[in-house]
């Protein structure tokens, strides 16, 4: 890693400058993370009197636990659904806005602000709209003969949290897609148009492949978002229910740690989550070094 060609020389100053950042990191990041690693090998009895070192027992129990396997599945469906929904809607908006000349900025303004809404608030907003007794959506769905109730139907609850989580993320994806579209050279599209390619064909054979680096980057970012930043959406609305149908991993760590007080299991879950973040971060950084392009 480089520095400037010429640097200042001081024996203590660089350490002093780094100190605040490194101290905060050590106390609130590295130390708790290593604690989680350590606790994941321990098990307390129910009275908290004895603590045993159990090696990988917490982990093997987790992977034998149907609730945990269910949570893995739920997380998979949830993050895939959120990523796909918000990215496809955002791409549609970006392609449409990119055609505009005069109205581009005003549409952008109308589409960026949901980024500022907290996930918990997004959850409450959609929860209200889908409220089975007074919400507008169940009322309209009843007109189509569908009886919406996210308090009893796991599928309904999952759709609700996916919509709430995806809604908030549209603005982020939209901004990146729009930036990507604007960097595609106009001459390529004109050349294809002269060769007689239709608008539809031009999009799928030229524009979409050229967007692939951004699409890939956004996919990773969205999966990270859906897996780790959506705690608020779940906690403020379904609380993992009904019958575990929306109990995503992050929410389960919290439940097992703070509500069920099963520290060993919660720590083991933390360790697994950390491993997932590490993998996703490495993928993301690899992408930055070497851009995907076909």
């Amino acid at each position, binding site marked *: 890693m480089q520095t400037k060609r010429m640097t200042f020389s001081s024996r203590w100053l*660089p350490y002093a*400058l780094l100190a605040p950042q490194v101290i905060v990191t050590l106390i609130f990041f590295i130390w708790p993370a290593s604690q989680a690693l350590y606790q994941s090998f321990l098990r307390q009895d129910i009275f908290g009197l004895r603590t045993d070192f159990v090696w990988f027992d917490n982990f093997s129990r987790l992977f034998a636990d149907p609730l945990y396997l269910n949570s893995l599945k739920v997380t998979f469906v949830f993050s895939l659904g959120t990523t796909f929904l918000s990215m496809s809607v955002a791409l549609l908006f970006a392609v449409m806005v990119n055609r505009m000349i005069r*109205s581009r900025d005003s549409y952008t303004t109308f589409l960026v602000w949901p980024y*500022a809404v*907290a996930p918990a*608030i997004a959850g409450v907003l959609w929860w209200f709209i889908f409220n089975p007794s007074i919400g507008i959506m169940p009322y309209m769905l009843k007109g189509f003969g569908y009886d919406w109730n996210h308090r009893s139907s796991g599928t309904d609850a999952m759709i609700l949290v996916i919509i709430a989580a995806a809604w908030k993320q549209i603005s982020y994806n939209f901004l990146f897609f729009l930036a990507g579209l604007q960097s595609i050279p106009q001459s390529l599209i004109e050349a294809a148009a002269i060769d007689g390619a239709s608008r539809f064909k031009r999009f799928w054979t030229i524009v979409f492949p050229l967007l692939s680096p951004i699409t890939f980057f956004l996919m990773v970012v969205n999966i990270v978002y859906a897996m780790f930043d959506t705690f*608020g959406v779940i906690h403020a609305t379904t609380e993992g229910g009904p019958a575990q149908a929306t109990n995503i991993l992050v929410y389960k760590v919290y439940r097992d740690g703070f509500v069920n007080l099963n520290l060993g299991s919660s720590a083991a879950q933390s360790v697994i989550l950390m491993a997932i*973040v590490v993998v996703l971060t490495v993928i993301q950084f690899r992408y930055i070094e070497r851009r995907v392009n076909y």
Partner: protein
Amino acid sequence: MVENNRWGNFFAHLVLILGVAIVIFPVYVAIVASTHPPGTFIRGVMPLLPGPNALENYKTVITEGRSRAGTPPIGGMLWNSFVMAMAITIGKLSISLLSAFAIVYFRFPFRIFFFWIIFLTLMLPVEVRIVPTFQVVADLGMLNSFAGLSIPLIASATATFLFRQFFMTVPEELMEAARVDGAGPMKFFKDILLPLSITNIAALFVIMFIYGWNQYLWPLLITTDPEYYTIVMGIQRMVTGGDSEPLWHLVMATVVLAALPPILVILFMQRLFVKGLTETEK
């Protein structure tokens, strides 16, 4: 120029207007709901047109809250959120400016090692290590305090990376000139580097402020004293606390007040926001 298709443009506008309407709809519904008297929500479907009770509802949530359900007045919570967001933002910006400066402008043993320690924070979101982090903060006696709300969240690898990247693009000659004129490192930092980075600082400020304001899980865990409740987490208590059916008109008034400040920040600083977002993440 590619052919200009009038019907295509009309169709694009139609899609966008519909899209914008769907995106705005939840907030519109919240604003409408916050203007109705409580009785509206007992009778059937929620209203789609504003009602007459706006002033009363907002006055109630700001000054009284719902004391029976254990929710304090919103006024205090808004202030707490503001203090927390500002503390996180300013804290993040200052420690990452300093460490980026150290990493770019000095050569010293263990430089790479420190860089990796900072990098690690990127991989450890609060959500994945909540129990042990909570224990650390409890052991330090920082529960129910602004220090506990903000300090554990101020380490930021993203900001450090961005400033490092920016410092690398600052011409070498500036530093040489400063040294020839006899300026020490801190003087160079304060009088040359900081003024040059002001746009980057402002762009990150917008992103970090929103990040800080929207914190949810962390305040939920470490505040048990209503004195320190922040507004985003307070909403959850209003929805689930007390009665089986929430008092929607008050909940929605709170939701509007909680979402408004960060939305205003984005709308008024849209250019800086877009710059901050697209440049930090790529």
